[in-house]
């Protein structure tokens, strides 16, 4: 194998598994260290720069970082990254003096943002400090998009939402709420330099089953019903509620139902329990509120008597898998199962809908009626129009929308300055040694053995009575510190300098997880099998040095390195050094 090019920032970026997995590439270990140091405001700002909504995401993020956490590869549970983010948000001081200055003299460029959800707000935050004049349009009464209409208050208190949405809206945006944009042409005719579409995936999918017409008054689309609850149009629901679907919207629907008068609330899902789309913790939270989940039940028909919904019939199925792992749901042949219901909520998915975009504006649509959008620049085939968030490639999540927003802002800025949108700015990288003394590091290199701490919940007796009472209480400061100490500091990189190495083997002997081997070079496949411990995790790279005096090479399997620094501590010649690698995605104007 060729020596690893550690000058390429993507190599060490990939070693920071959580940051690499985060769509917005938030420097996770950096802010976790700041939390451990009780520098909550600093930790908050690291987040705010990367993901714009730390308080919101600290409660609602889909957390792609956590399954990626290195700790999962050496013990059971990842660091509670998401809930630590909330610790930073809960304990920060006033941040107003840290927000970017908005120039009073504008740069003369006008940008329209359609939709005021996470993607659009991220674009606004990127462009407003650069002097752009920004008009934002939304059909809700306030900003936030799906964060306001679809995420229940018991998961995301309205004050937290308002605070973080307002940090952006207060950047001198011209926001128009309660307005439905019915024509993109009209917007383009206003001679904006660029238009960003961040209108989400607003249409809930329904099931057209026998009896639907008669049952209609008591059958609701999940996301519409959640919005109606959030905007206080809906104040109650029947005692017996069936929620169809297995995603996070279904979990929000069933838990909201419990707070709106539902007593016998059930989730019914076609797939096996383990294959439900909902995050495991959301399923747990539903279960802890006494909501059973019936899996392997396919809805067949609505049962209506005397013009009133009585319940639903379901067919029991089993999942079968073919050789390629493709699933089919095969009926078991048992009798249909009847479940009583006063109301049915359908949360089986949502999709995009662009009836308001004229098809003659130069924006190409594909066969699924989705706009053709560049995956890097987020530009459509009309160079003035950009898409992001769920409206670009279909339903994802908040953090993905934020990541889109950052890139779209970069593109819009390049475009408005007449530059090539494909010339992306490189990441901003800072790498520095953490050595403070012979055996002393400026980070807590000891590896904490603590198991993951659970976030305390408010009692059900309180939370089920009022949909606005937040269920999770968040970590207190002490528990937050202990959880933060579980972080392995994967951004403090083990950096090897072959010119200094005397091949004494001290690093090999001390490494608790047998990551380091000195051996003859070979192909990757060959090397992976003859290291100190087999390197079977192919998603993790091997770090290879140039040839050493004995003509061997140093091979380090990055897989389970604990970043404990012992290799560098035991190295007599500082051939190993622990260097903090801070990687930030370039934002607009960088």
């Amino acid at each position, binding site marked *: 194998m060729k020596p690893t090019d550690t000058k390429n920032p993507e190599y060490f970026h990939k070693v920071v598994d959580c940051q690499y997995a985060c769509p917005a590439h938030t420097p996770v270990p950096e802010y976790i260290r700041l939390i451990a140091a009780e520098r909550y405001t600093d930790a908050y700002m690291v987040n705010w720069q990367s993901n714009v909504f730390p308080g919101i995401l600290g409660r609602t993020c889909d957390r792609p970082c956590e399954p990626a956490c290195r700790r999962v*590869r*050496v*013990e059971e549970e990842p660091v509670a990254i998401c809930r630590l983010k909330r610790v930073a948000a809960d304990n920060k001081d006033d941040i107003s003096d840290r927000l970017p200055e908005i120039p009073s003299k504008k740069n003369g460029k006008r940008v329209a943002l359609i939709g005021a959800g996470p993607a659009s707000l991220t674009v606004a935050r990127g462009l407003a400090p650069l002097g752009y004049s920004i008009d934002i349009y939304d059909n809700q009464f306030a900003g936030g998009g799906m964060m306001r209409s679809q995420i229940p208050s018991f998961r995301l208190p309205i004050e937290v939402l308002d605070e973080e949405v307002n940090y952006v809206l207060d950047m001198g945006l011209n926001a128009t709420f309660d307005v439905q944009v019915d024509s993109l042409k009209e917007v383009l005719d206003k001679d904006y330099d660029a238009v960003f579409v961040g209108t989400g995936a607003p249409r809930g999918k329904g099931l057209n089953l026998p009896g639907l017409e008669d049952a209609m008054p008591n059958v609701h689309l999940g996301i519409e019903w959640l919005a109606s609850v959030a905007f206080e149009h809906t104040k109650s629901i029947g005692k017996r509620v069936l929620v169809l679907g297995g995603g996070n919207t279904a979990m929000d629907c069933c838990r909201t139902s419990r707070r709106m008068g539902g007593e016998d609330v059930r989730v019914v899902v076609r797939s096996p329990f383990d294959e439900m789309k909902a995050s495991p913790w959301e399923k747990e939270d539903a279960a802890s509120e006494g909501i059973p989940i019936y899996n392997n039940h396919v809805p067949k028909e609505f049962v209506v008597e005397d013009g009133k919904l009585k319940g639903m019939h379901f067919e029991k199925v089993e999942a079968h898998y073919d050789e390629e792992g493709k699933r089919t749901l095969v009926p078991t042949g048992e009798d249909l199962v009847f479940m009583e219901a006063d109301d049915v909520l359908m949360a089986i998915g949502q999709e995009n809908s662009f009836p308001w975009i004229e098809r003659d504006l130069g924006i190409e649509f594909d066969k699924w009626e989705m706009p053709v959008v560049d995956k890097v620049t987020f530009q459509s085939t009309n160079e003035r129009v950009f898409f992001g968030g769920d409206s670009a490639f279909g339903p994802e999540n908040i953090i993905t929308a934020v990541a889109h927003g950052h890139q779209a802002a970069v593109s819009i800025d390049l475009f408005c300055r007449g530059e090539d949108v494909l010339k992306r700015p490189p990441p901003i990288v800072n790498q520095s040694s953490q050595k403070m003394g*012979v*055996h*002393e590091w400026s980070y807590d*290199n*000891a*590896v904490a*053995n603590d198991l993951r701490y659970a976030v305390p919940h408010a009692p059900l007796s309180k939370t089920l009575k009022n949909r606005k009472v937040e269920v999770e209480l968040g970590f207190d400061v002490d528990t937050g510190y202990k959880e933060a100490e579980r972080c392995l500091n994967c951004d403090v990189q083990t950096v090897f300098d072959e010119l200094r190495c*005397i*091949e*004494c*083997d*001290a690093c*090999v*002997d*001390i490494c*608790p*997880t*047998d*990551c380091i081997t000195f051996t003859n070079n070979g192909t990757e496949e060959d090397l992976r099998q003859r290291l100190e*411990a*087999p390197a*079977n995790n192919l998603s993790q790279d091997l770090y290879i040095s140039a040839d050493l*005096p*004995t003509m061997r090479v140093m091979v380090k399997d990055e897989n*389970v390195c*604990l970043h*404990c*620094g*012992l290799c560098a*501590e*035991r*190295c*007599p*010649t500082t051939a190993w050094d622990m260097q903090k690698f801070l990687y930030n995605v370039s934002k607009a104007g960088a």
Partner: protein
Amino acid sequence: MSYQLPKFRHPDLPVNDLGYTRADYEGAISTLCAGCGHDSISGAIVRACHELSIEPHKIAKLSGIGCSSKAPTYFLGNSHGFNSVHGRMPSVVTGAALANRDMLYMGVSGDGDTASIGMGQFAHVARRNLNMVYIVMNNGCYGLTKGQDSATADRGSASKKGDANIYSAIDLCGTALQMGATFVARSFSGDKEQLIPLIKAAISHRGFALIDVVSPCVTFNNNTKSTKSYEFVREHAEATGTIDFVPMHNEITTEYQPGHAHEVTMHDGSSIRLYKMDESLNPFDRRSAVNVLEEHRSSGNILTGLIYMNLDSRDLHEVLETSQRPLNALDESDLCPGNKMLLNINASLR
């Protein structure tokens, strides 16, 4: 400075016949200097014992005084240990071994502990062919007292302070051969590929097995004028050949060209395979071993690998015809065989 090892280990560590991983043979985190050769030897001992599937409670590690003799704390944390008086480790092993022949005795000593204060003990334990492994972590200096030349420092070699050593060096392998040791090897802490099979062979050998391991002292004796520095040893080490250790129960699968390898069965049924051997050396002939050792010494090279092994070795127990069972397993009827037996003995003396 880290005082403890993280508890997490590689999830795919190989497991031996007893179900243990390498981690089960580790000791406390080392407090020796960073880069000390002794830590590599500790690592090699851990690997050898793990790979041989030796039950940790069947091993006793014994040492004297010095950096080397601190080292047993850093390996085999689940085994017995005895940190004895300076240079007196052989006496303690002799006592322990005579009381219980079922254990593996791993003596760990240094060049000071062996070649200076313990020279007399070393000579006699070799002469008696006590069944033990005797590992010398040989760095040519007294690291614990700031690096004075030791008795194994080569004449002309200079430590960090810069003055060349004016005395002749004691060659521990040569001395052991003279004293009648039945297994003599030399190795280098920076060459685990050679050291691990040698330790395994030494463990399998019945009788006194010396491995003199050159182990650079990074703090006081790893400079350009030293003959025990990493660089010098790498440049001047000449292996007698390559050695493979094949445990008794392992089928021999590796192929080798006939005529290029020599396979020897050890008393416990395992075997060692020697290949690419130096043609001038017959490691089963003491005279040949002495000659080759001397040739390399006079040409300024360091001979490593297996130097001598006596296949007909009879260890101290066999010579003394001692009890097959450990003394602690003998009950009253064994120890007091009764009046009839006493009368027999008395009759035999008349």
